[in-house]
C-alpha cells in the first residue's frame, strides 16, 4: 500500500514536471491599476507565487495558478499600505490570500492564450476569462495578461469606500510572469 502511494505520487510529480515552469519572482510582477479621483494608481503585490505549466507544443494543456498576499500591496505610502489590508478593503487578517486558478487555457493564435478560471478575492469566487500573451525571451517564457475586474463585486472597499467617485470600481489586475 505504501509502495503504491509512493509510486502514484511519483507518477503525479513526473506528469506535472513535464511542463511545470519555474517562475523568476524577481522579474515577475502582479499589480493592480485603478483610478483614485481620476488619478492613475499602479500598485504592485510584493508577495505572490505564480505557477504555470506550459508547453509551447501543447498550449491547451497549460495550467496556471497565482496566489498573492493581499497585505503585500504596495501603494508607495506606508499609511496607504496599512489601509488596504484593513477590513474595509482586503481584510487581510481573515483573507490573507487572493487566488486565481485556471480551469481551461485555450490557444488563440500565435503567442496568444485565452485563460478561464476562478478568481477568489476576500472569499468571493467568480469565473473570469482574460487574454494572456506568451513569448520566448532568452530561454524564458514571458507571460503577460490583464484582467479587468470590478472591485465592488469582491467587496473591496466597504463602508465609505464604496464611493466610486473616490476610488473607481474598475481595477485591472496585471500579470507579468517570467518563467523557465
Amino acid at each position: 500500500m505504501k509502495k503504491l502511494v509512493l509510486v502514484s505520487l511519483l507518477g503525479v510529480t513526473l506528469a506535472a514536471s513535464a511542463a511545470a515552469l519555474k517562475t523568476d519572482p524577481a522579474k515577475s510582477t502582479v499589480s493592480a491599476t485603478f483610478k483614485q479621483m481620476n488619478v492613475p494608481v499602479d500598485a504592485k503585490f510584493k508577495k505572490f507565487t505564480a505557477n504555470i505549466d506550459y508547453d509551447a507544443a501543447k498550449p491547451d494543456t497549460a495550467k496556471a495558478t497565482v496566489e498573492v498576499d493581499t497585505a503585500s500591496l504596495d501603494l508607495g505610502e506606508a499609511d496607504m499600505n496599512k489601509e488596504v489590508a484593513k477590513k474595509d478593503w482586503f481584510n487581510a487578517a481573515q483573507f490573507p490570500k487572493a487566488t486565481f486558478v485556471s480551469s481551461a487555457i485555450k490557444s488563440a493564435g500565435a503567442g496568444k492564450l485565452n485563460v478561464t478560471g476562478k478568481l477568489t478575492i476576500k472569499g468571493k469566487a467568480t469565473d473570469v476569462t482574460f487574454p494572456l500573451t506568451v513569448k520566448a525571451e532568452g530561454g524564458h517564457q514571458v507571460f503577460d495578461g490583464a484582467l479587468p475586474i470590478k472591485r465592488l463585486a469582491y467587496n473591496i472597499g466597504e463602508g465609505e469606500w464604496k464611493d466610486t467617485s473616490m476610488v473607481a470600481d474598475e481595477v485591472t489586475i496585471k500579470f507579468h510572469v517570467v518563467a523557465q
Partner: protein
Amino acid sequence: MQRYTKPAMLLHWLMAILIVAAFFLGLTMTAIHGITPTKLKYYSWHKWMGVTVLLLAVIRVLWRKANRPPPPVPGPAWQHKAADAVHYLLYFLIFAVPVVGYLYTYAAGVPVVYLGLWQMPAPFDPNPDWKQPLSELHEILAWAMAVIVSAHVLAALKHHFIDRDDVLKRMLPKF
C-alpha cells in the same frame, strides 16, 4: 489716488483667497490620521489649488510687466525698501511653494489630475528618495509664506487704520 488696474486687483484677491485656503487645507489634511476618503479629497483639492495659484502667478507677472503699478505712496525710505523686499519674496513664494509641491507629488509617483480632468505633465520619473526632502521643503516654504503674508497683511492694515494713507485703498475697487 491711482489704484491698481482691475485685473491686477482681481488676480491679487483671487490668489489671496486661494493661498490662505490652500495653506489651511494643507494643515488640515496632513493632520488627518491614516487614510480616509476626506483626506484623499482634500489632497486632490489642495493640489488643484496649487496648480491654480501657479497659473495665476504666471498671468500676474505678465500683467505686471505690461501694466505699471501705481507709484509708491509717500513715506520713509526704509518702509519702501521693506515693502519691496516683502513683495519680491511674495512673488518668489507664489511660484516656489506650488512648484515644490508639484515636484513632491511627482517624486511620490502621484500625478496631479487638474480638477479631475487633465493630467499634468510629469517632470521626472517617480523617485522615493526625493519624497521626504521635497515634502519638508514644501512645508518650510509654506510656513515662510505664512510669515511673509502676515507681515504684508499687518503692514496694509497699519497703513489703512493707523497712518490712514492710500496703501490698502489702491488695491480695493472703488465702491
